[in-house]
């Protein structure tokens, strides 16, 4: 079960703006999914090691050797509105 307030908070965290309609459906759908998922909440997994990785590797490192960077025009080509050789984003100040 998830509350409307939680949905709005999570949407802010995820930088998603949800329409009134989306919030409604999201509350219903997420609650349904979470009800199913909550089953694992009741399992007793005391002392079980969590798995964040299935590969048994360690210390996979890279030598400190320079590799060619992208030409600046290539790096900026896909940018929405480059300016003065830089990527441009709206100012956070305007909050």
């Amino acid at each position, binding site marked *: 079960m998830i509350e409307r307030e*939680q949905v709005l908070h*999570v949407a802010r965290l995820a930088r*998603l703006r*949800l329409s009134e309609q989306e919030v409604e459906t999201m509350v219903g759908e997420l609650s349904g999914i979470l009800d*199913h998922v909550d089953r694992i909440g009741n399992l007793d997994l005391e002392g079980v090691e969590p798995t964040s990785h299935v590969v048994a*590797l360690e210390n996979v490192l890279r030598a400190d050797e320079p590799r060619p960077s992208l030409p600046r025009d290539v790096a900026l080509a*896909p940018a929405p509105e480059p300016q003065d050789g830089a990527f441009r984003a709206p100012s956070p100040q305007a909050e």
Partner: protein
Amino acid sequence: MTDLLALTALEAHEAMVAGDLDAGEYTAAWREAAAGDELNAYLWRDEGGEEAGAIAVERDCIAPIAVKDIFCTEGVPTTAGSRILEGYRPPYTSTAVRKLLEAGAPVLGKTNMDEFAMGSSNENSAYGPVLNPWDRGRVPGGSSGGSAAVVAGGLAPWAIGTDTGGSIRQPAAFCGIVGLKPTYGAISRYGMIAFASSLDQCGPLTRTVSDAALLLGILQGKDPCDSTSVGLEGGVALPGREDLSGLRFGVPAELGHDEYDSGVRAVFEATLEKIEELGGEIAEVSLPSSEHGISAYYVIAPAEASSNLARYDGVRYGMRAGGDGDLIEMYETTRSEGFGAEVKRRIMLGTYALSSGYYEAYYGQAQKVRTRIAEDFEGAFSGVDFVVTPTAPSVAFGLGEKTDDPLAMYLNDFFTVPMSLAGIPAISIPAGLAEPEGGGPQLPVGFQIAAPAFAEQRLLDAAHALEQGIGFDARPEGLGG
């Protein structure tokens, strides 16, 4: 050469190497076939336009291939089925595609998919659903639906896709072809647009098990650009095995009949008999934690996805909307307009599962379930060589049938998710046809075989023997067979 398109990729390769088949002519025939796509399976095709140069091969000698639009290809549109990457042309090429090009396989085109590989029906593509070549009123499965459809629909000799919770195996089953999810780490993930990093794995979608082996041999390998890649020691040999004598196949005791359609069950049981005919042995194994696979998967995958998809922020590439407001306004407008409903749903789910106060209850607990599931398989493999299940609970369902019930859609991955969580290899081969629940023309049913990590060779050998024994030769209407 009578019908070039009738050749399997392996046959074509051998003919080209022997000089009996002209690579240019063969590739041209496939380009022509691909151009006839009526399934909305291709998002981009190489028509020898300016993009083609960007992905030119050294020498043709491997059959041309269709590539899921999740693999970055320098200079070629790469969208991952999302509006937010519309028009994006990566400045680099993924390791998987580079290996194909180096081996001499021209890229026919980029295939349609569920947005960011999130889906089991291909209805989550921002560019419209892919139609199932067996019945255009039905879904091809997902998320690699385009790759499965082009192979089944005669629009490509073979294809690559990605599998996070079943995204190769389930569409292969729905389309009546072979789909292999290799061991996590067998193939580099570099340049493969991330959905859930600890689960994503590239793999082949082919007509035959031998084609899958040939393709896996080309793709596998440790990659210095992917810290988590391992490769397959000794590479991959073409499967030669003819029978299954001495091999034990485990059927999970937990496989309750209510989880899948009767038509699917009939094919599954017939296949078990076929295994015994071929000298194999059927045993019961226990995978007690598998029933929690879906729950664990739908915490872990969305959690990783919520972080992986945070980079689509309208600053460096891709779509930007609301750029005239302040920063947060731009972020929210871009992401709200750029992502589809399913992607937003999973970002929300994953963000929630990681948010303070909920991490242990959801992500932490799911990681422990994951450990249990892996332990279940280890236990099972101490007694059997393989674990077998149906690939999907049903045959291909109708377009729009499950779109308004996300949970029902998620439960479709019931049989494929546990192997993904355990990181082990699993293959789906076409095992027969079955009538959908509620009637209609017969549709393909997939049979899933799972093996211990890095046991791909044994898996392919056994799958090949079973494939020969089954002799599945049905083809969608209009494609002969």
